[in-house]
């Protein structure tokens, strides 16, 4: 957990404020719509950036270990022409891998730019939401005659300006995300070209295959975002005391391919209105792969969550998930699969709340298992502070406990990932 974890909380505050302004200031409807379009997950992008960084480090390690391994053999051990050819190949391989490492760094940096842009927007949105809420109060006061009547029209005009500013800020966010985001695909092409020049004859084919597999995920993401844009627009007037639009809030579509070629394809949705005392999230997925043309069923997963949010009273939610995966096919192949399940619950009054999560995982192939639990405080749906404990038993039966304390407020004050234990 770091600084980036705050974007959810800020967007939560922003949406609550702008919803409060919506009954009296029509421009706030569109601001609400634009906020919905700009809500991402900066913390997850940062987590992904860390993963790319780790992969980059592993590639550096591979380069060193190839050079070490090849260099260990003395000249007199192998003094033929074939040795020179081998050494040239090793050099070329290391240069190609240097490009692979650089690619990971580029992806990491682009992800951090995207995360920073989302966080910056969330800060802006929270401020804009607060301003619109104040403006709405001025408008109401003007109508009621508490302040002079011209203040009402000026409040409305100012709200119009706020909408323009939000529109521009959203466009800027879209621009930054599009430019930084294009790098992922474009730089893959650039890297494959550099690799080809360095003697990797398969580099272009790798890029083409990435376009095919990645394209499926890309189109699924496009479909999901297009549908959610429509839903956000249809539901832009949705307010706690005046529900409108569709009960379906957003949908979730997935088609992701992992490193071993297993696809996870699924769908889900969130049903519930802004004013309704409950909402339900549900989804399911299946996992499959193609092994030499044969279709292999690799497992399935499902999850659901019920949220109870009555106006005024305490709010709570409870959810669960279950997942089974088996890399060589369910009830097929010599290997056994992995089962995981989890339960989560949240409780809160007003803006503050508490969150509890437990998760368990058992690998039937090597016998290892892991359970984890976490608890913490939340504000407007974002994590404020918490503790996470993990107990893991590896395939040799050795147990290990690890606990981490998260405190984003501390992180903001001290500028980094402190407070870990």
């Amino acid at each position, binding site marked *: 957990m770091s600084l980036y974890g705050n974007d959810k909380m800020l967007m939560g505050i922003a949406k609550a404020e702008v919803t409060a302004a919506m009954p009296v200031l029509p421009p706030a409807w569109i601001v609400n719509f634009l906020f919905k379009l700009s809500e991402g997950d900066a913390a997850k992008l940062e987590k992904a950036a860390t993963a790319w960084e780790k992969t980059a480090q592993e590639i550096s390690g591979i380069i060193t270990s190839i050079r070490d391994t090849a260099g260990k053999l003395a000249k007199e051990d*192998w003094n033929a022409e074939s040795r020179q050819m081998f050494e040239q190949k090793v050099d070329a391989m290391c240069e190609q891998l240097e490009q692979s490492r650089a690619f990971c760094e580029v992806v990491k940096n682009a992800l951090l730019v995207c995360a920073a842009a989302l966080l910056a927007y969330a800060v802006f949105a929270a401020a804009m939401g607060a301003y619109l809420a104040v403006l709405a109060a001025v408008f109401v006061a003007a109508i009621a005659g508490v302040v002079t009547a011209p203040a009402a029209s000026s409040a409305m005009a100012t709200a119009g300006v706020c909408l323009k500013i939000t529109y521009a800020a959203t466009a800027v966010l879209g621009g930054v995300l599009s430019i930084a985001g294009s*790098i992922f695909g474009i730089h893959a092409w650039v890297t494959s070209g550099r690799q080809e020049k360095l003697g990797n004859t398969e580099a272009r084919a790798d890029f083409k295959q990435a376009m095919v597999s*990645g394209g499926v995920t890309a189109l699924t993401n496009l479909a999901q975002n297009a549908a959610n844009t429509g839903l956000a627009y249809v539901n832009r007037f949705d307010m706690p005391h005046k529900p409108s639009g569709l009960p379906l809030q957003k949908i979730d579509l997935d088609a992701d391919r992992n490193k071993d070629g297993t696809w996870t394809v699924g769908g889900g949705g969130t049903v519930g209105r802004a004013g309704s005392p409950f909402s339900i999230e549900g989804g399911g997925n299946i996992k499959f792969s193609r092994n030499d043309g044969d279709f292999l069923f690799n497992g399935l997963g499902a999850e659901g969550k019920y949220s109870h949010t009555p106006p005024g009273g305490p709010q709570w939610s409870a959810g669960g998930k279950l997942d089974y995966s088996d890399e060589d096919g369910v009830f097929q192949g010599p290997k056994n699969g992995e089962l995981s399940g989890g339960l989560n619950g949240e409780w809160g009054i007003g803006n503050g709340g508490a969150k509890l999560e437990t998760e368990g995982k058992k690998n039937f192939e090597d016998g290892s298992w892991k359970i984890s639990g976490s608890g913490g405080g939340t504000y407007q749906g974002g994590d404020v502070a918490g503790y996470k404990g993990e107990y893991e038993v590896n395939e040799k039966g050795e147990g290990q406990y690890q606990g981490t304390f998260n405190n984003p407020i501390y992180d903001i004050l001290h500028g980094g990932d402190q407070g870990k234990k």
Partner: protein
Amino acid sequence: MGNPELEFRTGNIKKLSGDLKNTVAPKFDQAMKHIDGDGTIEGGDFSIVGTVAAMSYPIGLQYAFQDLATHKRQVEKYADAVAASAENYRKSEESSTVKRTPK
């Protein structure tokens, strides 16, 4: 039987082949593991206005998988080639030795 010095050399070359195959090649799987887990990003995580990023990212991720898998395969191929040339080396040295001492 055989030349002890020659055996030592082919043994060392074969060890190089084994190291490439058993020590270096598995490191590629380790490298892919990081982006295989946390590297999978949901379409909505870039936000809706970031759809371009959500469409470009999977291509970058799949390219990294393809690229690392290819390099892993190439390292294994080199390891096999090294082992084969060690074998050839031994055979040619042996046959030249045999020529000098007729049976």
